[in-house]
């Protein structure tokens, strides 16, 4: 039997997930049967692994687990469905579709993700097909929103430089399309595509991925300086737009970033990517494809925890990678060009773009779009979508921009913003405006502690401390996740909390304000009182002792509260 000749560097037996993918016939598995099984709202774990590649995975309402067990009911199984749009750009029609399916099939809310995607939670197995079809009919997709493939390509939504954005967005979409899986399984399962015996061989079916896809997820993001809102250094493959004299010249290329790690396993660590050179826009797709194929061929398929691209590069060295890339490209990268980032946050409120159109950056706490008694955010956005002729842009900070509003429409949109009290966050502290939290409980199966449901409460308690020392308008990047997989990119935040157990967090300090430096563990396994007790004196000291324009993440290092992390490989080093 032919033994995967494309993956020679690995001698160790492949992990079970690799086997599942290999046997799946290009992501089909037994999904057709298990999705139809009427006795359970779940699907078997093997199929769930494949399901991720279709943009969804099974979760259950963990709040109800014990209660339902006693009631002789299976867990409240439900599916998270991730809908991707390259660069987070969607039309008003697409927004209205999302609003509709969220109410009809999901839990009535939309979650904006840190990768400019939509998430629907609480979709039942029986409703998946209708939901995915609705998404597809609106020209969006869930394919490859999760799984061991290239994920949603992130792109700065910067409304200042409208022409540049349009151009960068164009390339982001091209890269995204180019790296889409080609399997027909998606059409067969969800869109009633005819099931045909595919006579194409592996090369034809998945010319880039092959039958086993990538060893792990792969993330690409494109930043447009001075904004690093996409956290370009957290990406497996990052591109930094180089704009000279108002012209897009090309992109610096950075490789080997990634957030995820496991508690207690220092062989796993977050990493920031390294800039290796420059390419022109026309070379972008080639660079992306070849980088992906290098990871496909050299990534670790034996140990999943060690399978991300960052380990492939760290294990073999950056020089090796550049050499391999050059060999596959058949040409050499140019030297990287200078660039400068100012921050990784959003610019809230109304701004006028260079094309004369207006943009309103809305603050969405933790990316959760929903209606509450006193804040009808979801309805407000729906009403805006009904009259809006521009587009919506999901930001990498889980916010939303009502974008490309023509001057004569601005009044109408403004009226709706006022009517529904939609906020740009100006009455919140700058800390809250720079905050992010992952979903965590009750739906995320990985969660160890609360995140989205808890961070606002914690901020309520930090805000008075800031006010006391006059830091309400000081932007400090603060992020929280329920587990160390890094969905809200906490390892790049100036202050971060990573869930350890119920009510307990590891606290990290010292990330770079522009997303350029990893933070470091400050205190382990602490609860709220110790968090607040630690922060209070530090914030007071920062207020009084900081240098001009010195960011909190830099200050805590200078003040000796935490050691600087220079590279992912010394992330765990203490003292």
């Amino acid at each position, binding site marked *: 039997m032919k033994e995967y000749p494309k993956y020679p560097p690995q001698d160790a037996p492949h992990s079970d997930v690799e086997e599942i993918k290999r046997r799946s016939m290009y992501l089909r598995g037994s999904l057709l049967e298990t999705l139809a099984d*009427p*006795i359970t*709202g779940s699907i078997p774990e093997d199929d769930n692994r494949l399901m991720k590649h279709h943009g969804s995975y099974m979760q259950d309402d963990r709040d*109800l687990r014990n*209660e339902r067990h*006693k009631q*002789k*009911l299976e867990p409240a199984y439900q599916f998270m469905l991730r809908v991707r749009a390259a660069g987070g750009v969607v039309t008003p029609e697409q927004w209205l579709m999302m609003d509709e399916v969220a109410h009809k099939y999901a839990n009535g809310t939309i979650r904006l993700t840190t990768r400019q995607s939509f998430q629907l939670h609480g979709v*039942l197995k029986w409703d998946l097909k209708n939901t995915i079809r609705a998404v597809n009919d609106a020209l969006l997709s869930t394919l490859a929103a999760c799984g061991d493939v290239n994920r949603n390509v992130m792109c700065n939504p910067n409304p200042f430089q409208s022409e540049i954005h349009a151009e960068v967005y164009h390339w982001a979409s091209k890269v995204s399309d180019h790296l889409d899986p080609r399997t027909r399984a998606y059409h067969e399962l969800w869109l009633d595509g005819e099931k045909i015996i595919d006579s194409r061989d592996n090369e034809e079916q998945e010319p880039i991925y092959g039958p086993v896809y990538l060893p792990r997820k792969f993330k690409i993001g494109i930043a447009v300086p001075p904004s690093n809102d996409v956290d370009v250094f957290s990406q497996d493959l990052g591109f930094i737009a180089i704009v000279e004299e108002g012209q897009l010249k090309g992109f610096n290329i950075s490789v080997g970033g990634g957030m995820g790690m496991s508690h207690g396993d220092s062989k796993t660590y977050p990493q920031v990517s390294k800039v290796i050179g420059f390419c022109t826009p026309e070379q972008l797709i080639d660079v992306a494809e070849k980088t992906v194929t290098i990871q496909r061929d050299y990534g670790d398929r034996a140990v999943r925890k060690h399978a991300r691209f960052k380990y492939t590069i760290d294990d073999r060295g950056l020089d090796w990678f550049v050499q391999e890339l050059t060999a596959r490209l058949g040409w050499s990268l140019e030297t990287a060009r200078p660039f400068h980032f100012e921050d990784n946050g959003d610019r809230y409120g109304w701004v006028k773009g260079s094309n004369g159109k207006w943009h309103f950056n809305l603050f969405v706490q933790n990316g959760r779009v929903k209606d509450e008694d006193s804040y009808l955010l979801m309805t407000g956005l729906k009403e805006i979508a009904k009259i809006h002729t521009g587009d919506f842009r999901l930001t990498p900070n889980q916010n939303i921009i009502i974008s490309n509003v023509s001057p004569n429409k601005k009044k109408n949109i403004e009226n709706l913003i006022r009517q529904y009290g939609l906020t740009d966050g100006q009455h919140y502290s700058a800390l809250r405006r720079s905050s992010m939290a992952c979903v965590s409980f009750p739906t995320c199966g990985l969660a160890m502690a609360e995140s989205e449901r808890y961070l606002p409460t914690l901020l309520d308690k930090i805000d008075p401390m800031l006010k006391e020392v006059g830091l309400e308008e000081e932007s400090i990047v603060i992020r929280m996740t329920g587990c160390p997989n890094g969905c809200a990119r906490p390892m790049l935040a100036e202050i971060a909390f990573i869930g350890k157990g119920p009510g307990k967090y590891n606290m990290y300090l010292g990330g770079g304000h522009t997303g350029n430096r990893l933070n470091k563990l400050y205190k382990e396994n602490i609860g709220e009182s110790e968090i607040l007790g630690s922060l209070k004196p530090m914030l007071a000291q920062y207020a009084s002792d900081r240098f001009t324009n010195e960011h909190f993440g830099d200050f805590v290092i200078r003040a000796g509260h935490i050691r600087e992390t220079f590279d992912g490989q010394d992330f765990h080093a203490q003292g």
Partner: protein
Amino acid sequence: MELQVTNSPFNQEQVELLNRLLPTLVDSQRIWLGGYLAAIQYAGIGTNQNAVLSSTVAGDTAPAASAIPVSQSSTQSKSVTVVFGSQTGNSDALGKKVAKKLEAQGFEVTVSSMGSYKTGNLKKVENLLIVVSTQGEGEPPDNAIPFYEFLFSKRAPQLPNLRYSVLGLGDTSYEFFCQTGKDFDKRLEELGGHRIADRVDCDVDFDEAAGEWIEKVLLALGQGQADLLSEVKAIDSGALASESEFSRTNPFQAEVLQNLNLNGRGSQRETRHVELSLEGSNLHYQPGDSLGIYPENHPRLVDELIEALGWNAQELVPVSKSGDQQLLRNALLRHFEITVLTKPLLAQITELTGSPSLAILQSAGHEQELRDYLADRDLLDLVVDHSLIGVTAQQLVPLLRKIPARLYSIASSLQSNPDEVHITVRTVRYDLQGRDRYGVCSVQLAERLESGESIPVYIQHNPNFKLPEDPNTPIIMIGPGTGVAPFRAFIGEREETGAQGKSWLFYGDQHFSTDFLYQTEWQHWLKEGALTRMDVAFSRDRDQKVYVQHRMLEKAKELYQWLQEGAALYVCGDEKKMAHDVHAALVTILEQEGNLSPEAAADYLTQLQQQKRYQRDVY
């Protein structure tokens, strides 16, 4: 206690033999032996042992054979045939009881259910006793339908030599009270029969009235052999030695082991799963049997009633004919029915109060109005609507019916849950005329019965809803909602006994997520193979409402194939809609898959019923 010559009727040799044997017996053997000895006494010393043994061992379950010859005695030539038509088992038990008593008096008795009685023999019968209950809108029980239809058909023979009497069971809160009994009584007369004792129509609390009927027929048949009755009683109590001392008339106080709501959050439903302990009761049951529960009325309703009538809760009122007295509030809580109105009660109250509005309600031309009123009003409505102020407790309370027991299909297998009985009860709550209404028993279970507390129960055997004797026979079970309860017992039993027959369950309710009763247990049984397949219909998860009969029709081909392989069909749950729709679906399936005419399909199902391969427990 060791047996000795001095403390027993045995001689030395017998005593020694017994003393050697008795200590070696395990419980089940002792129970068996007790029943055996009691039974051979009935059977006239050891004749036809096999028949007696099998029926004793099987508890109260009637063997599947067509008729049970209770006696082979030759001392009397007088023969009596007892046929019963039973839905829940009461007529069955009463029919067998009267047979035993006749047998004890030396009659040659043939006792049979209507479902298995050979109608061709009717012409030869001299003495016929009929015990039959009435269902819903005045219909006969399922398994009595062929017998009923035969008697009312042109094929029915003239019966000029027949002596007969009818005992009807029913419920006065239904419009067509004891209608089937009345029909039989009238029809036998039309066919030339001679009524030897007047028909007795029993209300839900039937013991006393049924006892009187039995005495009357015994007298009529035995032509004055009343002196034998004392002997009958002696034998009766002897026979009970092997059984539990607890019964419908002497319920067991069962402790609640667990009481939980099976419906998940967000459900429109509440369904209690109640586990009760039978420890120390010596009560036994089989899958398909029911549990009787004596509930208490809702304290709020009792208090409202007392207040509306201006009564004194502490006043003593009679609670039985023998003159026992209790405080009014207790009596209304535990002894009397106050949630259901009956025609006789209305008549008596009208007489008592002279209420003109009540008199009008019962007068000619107001039949529909009366029907509607009786259908959903309770005693408090009656008091308020007809201003019955001034009636005393002493006057009104004696007119009330005893609170009847509620029957629930048992949801557990005794084999897999020794000393326990489980039930599945949907809580009934609704609003009527601006007042919250409660299902008496279901709301008591839901609100006022916690673990550790006790409730009076008894076992109601139901021979008409039993697993096939052959463990290899495939079974098809249709039980939406709480109708699934007995099938939990069926599958639990089949798992425990390692039965190899295939099984197929159709289940349905409103929502998959919250209303899938016992979901994880079915999943387990499907995985382990005790349950072969399962189809579900959740009516409110889709725009289109889907019910179990739709799933049956979708699977018509396989379902027909199972029937052709000899599968037994079971239907449990709502009678009015579900059981009717399921029956119609079965007819359609037979027409479609078996190429049968509508008549032939109906015949097919009738035959299944007669072969006990189509059994229903509907309510």
